[in-house]
């Protein structure tokens, strides 16, 4: 379950990165539709955080340690919302570029999360 969500979130983050990157390329700020996209990705990341914590509480043991796992979960839940606020303050193409970069960071975090969780559960 959490592996599937990690993969889905990684893909969603890359799509968001491409979408906002395209807006930056066309010299446009983030628009309402972009914010809806960011909200979807942010909600997925929060769901992942909740599931991860529940799994930990249930006795699951990430391969590379609980502290690192939780740190990455929190980081991936915060990445897109912070970038969204920065793009609200920056109504130029650079606001879009910021969201795009944050989404790439999120995708990298998901790859790392996949490793950290390891072969435990599915």
């Amino acid at each position: 379950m959490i592996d599937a969500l990690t993969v889905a979130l990684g893909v969603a983050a890359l799509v968001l990165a491409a979408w906002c990157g395209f807006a930056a390329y066309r010299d446009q700020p983030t628009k309402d539709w972009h914010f809806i996209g960011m909200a979807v990705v942010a909600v997925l990341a929060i769901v992942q955080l909740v599931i991860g914590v529940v799994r930990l509480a249930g006795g699951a043991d990430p391969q590379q340690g609980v502290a690192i796992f939780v740190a990455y979960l929190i980081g991936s839940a915060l990445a897109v919302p912070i970038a969204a606020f920065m793009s609200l303050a920056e109504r130029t193409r650079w606001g879009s570029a910021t969201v795009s970069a944050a989404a790439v960071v999120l995708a990298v975090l998901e790859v790392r999360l996949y490793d950290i969780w390891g072969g435990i559960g599915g």
Partner: protein
Amino acid sequence: MAGNTSNPAGGNPAAGGTEPAATARTGLGQGPGRLLVMLYGVFTVAAASRSVYQLIAQYHEAPLAYILSAVSAVVYAFITVSLVRGGEGARKAALVCCAAELLGVLAVGTWTLADPSAFPDQTVWSDYGMGYLFIPVFLPVTGLLWLRRARRD
């Protein structure tokens, strides 16, 4: 030298360029700077949390690598704050730190390749930041370019 030039704006009329904008803070954290703030913020968090965790949990394994990571975290944090604060003083300080960061990446990168035995574990700047998609090399160069341009604007 006249002793009564108590101009509240603090500018010397003879020096030219006394428009109000001269005292306003330069927007280091705006436009392209916003993207830099985000990336420097990410690297501050990444390097700081990584080094704090490693210094506490496994200090004895590779003390040199973890201390270097902690140093890089401090540099990143300082540049992030400077970019957000803005102003000429912050710009100059950030310029110095970006140069130090670039030298650090190049030095540590070369060191890790020349003497791998000194580094049983990775640092943020190992192999020129290869583990971080080489962003640690590009970031200070971009930062230096941006800080140079911010002076002209």
